[in-house]
């Protein structure tokens, strides 16, 4: 039981789907999302009785593992390959702006920028709360968000111009 008496099983039953959604938006990968959530929950289970706020704890664990996983994989990744291929099949620039293309572009962002944008736009968290989860200052959060958004705009314009649409 946590300090508020919630059992681990109850927590997982109630919040598991939301955690998987968060992890999937973060990673864009089914297997990785399941892996991150399960691993975070196993860690949380070991110390459940000492966790006051399981929601924040587990989310932080998912996030930290995502950042860590990406660090370990980063040397082998060529992230820019994926979205261009994804968007290459689109007929015109307008489609570049649509959500599907944006999902592809989102996948090209460096891990911290993507994490910050997911926390801001999917979880609706403020900069201070994001800073606490990511483990950096609020100013750094703003910098990551700014760079991430700029990069998305640039990528969208590049792809848009390549396929003849308006940015």
């Amino acid at each position, binding site marked *: 039981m946590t300090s508020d008496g919630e059992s681990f*099983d109850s927590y997982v039953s109630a919040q*598991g*789907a939301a955690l998987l959604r968060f992890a*999937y*938006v973060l990673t864009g990968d089914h297997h990785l*999302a399941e892996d991150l959530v399960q691993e975070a929950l*196993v860690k949380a289970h070991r110390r459940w009785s000492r966790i006051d706020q399981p929601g924040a704890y587990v989310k932080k664990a998912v996030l*930290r593992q995502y950042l860590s996983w990406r660090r370990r994989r980063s040397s082998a990744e060529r992230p820019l390959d994926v979205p261009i291929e994804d968007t290459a099949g689109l007929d015109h620039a307008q489609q570049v702006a649509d959500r599907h293309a944006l999902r592809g572009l989102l996948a090209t962002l460096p891990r911290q920028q993507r994490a910050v944008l997911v926390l801001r736009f999917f979880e609706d968290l403020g900069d201070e709360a994001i800073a606490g989860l990511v483990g950096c200052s609020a100013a750094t959060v703003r910098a990551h968000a700014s760079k991430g958004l700029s990069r998305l705009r640039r990528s969208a314009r590049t792809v848009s111009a390549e396929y003849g649409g308006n940015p």
Partner: protein
Amino acid sequence: MNDLDNELRGAMADLAAEAPSSHDLLAAVHRRGRADRRRRLTTVVAAIAVLAVVGGASVVALVSRDPGDRREQQRLQVATPAGSSETAPPSPVDVGWLPDGFPKPSVRLLGPNAWGLDTRREEGLAALQVQIMPAEPDARTEPGTLSPVSVGGAVGSLYWVPTHAPGVPPYGNRPPEAEGPYGELIFQRRPGQWIRIIVQNSAGAVDLGITQADLVRIGTGLVDRERALPDAIRLGLLPGHVVWGQLKNQDYGVWADFVDADLPDRPVDRNEQPNGHNGSVQSQVSVAILPEDALEIAGLGQSGPPPTEDPDGDGLVEREVEPPSIPAEGKVFEQDGRRIALYRLRSNPKLVVYVVAKPSFGMADEDLLTVAASVRIGPDAAVKPAR
């Protein structure tokens, strides 16, 4: 908010709608925890072997409580024969009609004098639970729609969330509504007997294939027919003045929770859902049969020194834990102010009986052990021993 912000929110909502299902998550976490535990044990055994080779094996004794540090003497005696879960109060109600594809429901104990009849189908994915309880439950009111309905002449309430993608407005991020279609019918079947029928799936935009009229038909079709609980755990002894509160029969453990016999009638927790035990029953004593490498047991081991580095690089450092030693006569451990008795099951030493009581309940260590020693596993138990 500019266009890119809006597009990002929309793109992320689209992604969320494709997230993996949480249906098997809890069982997967328990399985993974056990596998992780086995891996850690292997590491610890190897480390001890290395230490022994260099001539310095260290043995860490588990801390036992000072005999003078007695808590308040228990106010209850271990005396009342409790029987098995099969002889616990049976559900007084059974289903008479179900939509096509649903197999015969299993029976769960959700609370004192409260049961759940659970069934699910994969084609037309839906989980269905009929809850029987002694008091009127709270009805959900939003973000779905709540409307009155006649159920065999009784006035009931029907709450309905249509098929929708997960996380889309107005269904937000709060389960169960956020995860997909959801229906809930509540009515009083007879004095002192309330029914809540829940049907749902967590697959998002996948239709239930069940109508509101179907829910009402399930309600009117209920029959007075006893359904026994599975014979999963048998207890020879229990403290007096407690009654069955909850039974959970899973592959990661069989849990029997007992509550104060004077607990007033109350409805099943609103969070109790077909996908798992979500409700709390204010148990005074819990008795479980667990695999020996279950996390609940591993957590009673002796922690090593704090790690000096974070090998995973995830910011969450872990101490290695030496597994608890459980002698033949059982042993009582302390964790966060609670006393927990462990006792190896005689019929299968890879399974461990785990007994814990609320500190305020005042059970002595000897009583915890006596209860643990009286436990036997039933033929219907779903728990799987450690490999």
